[in-house]
């Protein structure tokens, strides 16, 4: 995509020390960090069809290079991740320039994305898609006992690869509950129900930006995205918050407020 190449050059000339985007070299799409306008990688920059956790990569890059300014190619999901990560103090948006790309109709439908475009679109055209609700609808048509059985069957396929956590742009804790031997018994596959998957689902509440990378990375095809999507629906319903929306909106789970605020909440 020649447009992207021009944009990368512009951002590098305009003060960014490096541009994180994707490249397509010999048919393989992978993330690439372009640090100068003479980089041979510039010939291969491409939006590509594969998605990678660019937010996760940027957390590491900003930590490793605290004095550098980065530009990054973002789809709607990447932008949501970076916004929420900034609220969780993992990403410094002041040292980051986002270049937005809208997903195509085909991509948006295949992905079932709730918002397949970022706030500012530099590449592509904005299309709307309906978030995939087939799994949620199916599960909600079942009675409680059947529903529990349905999820147990799904989780029984888990090989505990930790891919859902590893690929997740929103997972950054140094001490992960999923590696705590008191909560998740080491060496047991599949993990005990409900510990592993319910710990993760709860940790994703108010944090999951619904990119679906977890489900894509799952070798056992567990419908993780639907599980976390339902958690976000509940969060929105009860606390009127959906992760990744705007920088200004506070995450109700990430602050406690002053003692006075808490007392006031209790009185209400």
């Amino acid at each position, binding site marked *: 995509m020649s447009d992207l190449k021009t944009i990368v050059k512009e951002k590098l000339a305009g003060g960014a*020390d*490096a541009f*994180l985007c994707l490249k397509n070299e010999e*048919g*393989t*799409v*992978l*993330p*690439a*960090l372009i*640090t100068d306008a003479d980089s041979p990688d510039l010939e291969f920059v491409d939006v590509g*069809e*594969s*998605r*990678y*956790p660019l937010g996760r*990569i940027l957390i*590491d*890059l900003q930590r*490793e*290079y605290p004095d*550098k300014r980065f530009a990054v190619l973002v789809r709607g999901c990447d932008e949501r991740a970076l916004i929420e990560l900034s609220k969780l103090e993992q990403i410094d948006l002041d040292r980051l320039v986002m270049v937005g790309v809208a997903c195509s109709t085909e991509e948006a439908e295949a992905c079932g994305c709730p918002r397949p475009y970022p706030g500012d679109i530099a590449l592509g055209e904005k299309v709307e898609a309906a978030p995939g609700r087939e799994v949620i609808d199916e599960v909600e048509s079942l009675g409680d006992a059947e529903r529990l059985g349905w999820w147990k069957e799904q989780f029984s396929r888990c*090989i*505990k*690869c*930790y*891919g859902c956590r*590893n*690929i997740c742009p929103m997972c950054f804790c140094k001490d992960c509950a999923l590696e705590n031997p008191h909560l998740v018994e080491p060496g047991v596959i599949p993990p005990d129900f409900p510990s592993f998957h319910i710990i993760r689902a709860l940790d994703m509440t108010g944090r999951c930006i619904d990119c679906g990378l977890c489900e*894509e*990375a*799952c*070798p056992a095809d567990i419908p993780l995205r639907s599980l976390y999507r339902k958690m976000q629906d509940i969060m929105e319903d009860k606390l009127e918050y959906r992760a990744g929306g705007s920088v200004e909106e506070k995450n109700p789970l990430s602050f406690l407020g002053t003692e006075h605020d808490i007392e006031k909440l209790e009185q209400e």
Partner: protein
Amino acid sequence: MAENNNELSYKLVPSTCVYCGTGCGVLLEVTGNRLSGTLPQKDHPVSRGALCIKGWSVHEFVHSPRRLARPMIRKDGELVETDWETALQAVATGLAGARDEHGPDSVGFFASARCSNEENYLLQKLARAAVGTNNVDHCARL
């Protein structure tokens, strides 16, 4: 963990997971001059963006402090550092001794997924042609 030179650089090197015979596609993350992580290759024809826990951790052994960096020989029950010449001589003497005393099938060869195809070929050639046994196996025989 190797010290980073902190030159601004981040690369992903496509490779194949060495842990078993499946051949999943991994992308090795290199930050500065340090191997910093692994990502699954999303469009890989074998693994299609998924990995098992071993694949996800495949970068960890490279800078592991438990990795042997020099040849060692066990002397009086203790492992002691030595040079390659002495180590190889000890291996050759031990293998020849076992073969001469108990026959070639008293010896077995264990190849590795961390070696190249060509190196594994040479190991089975040593087993079959030099020692005279078909006792060849592999750590990735899943």
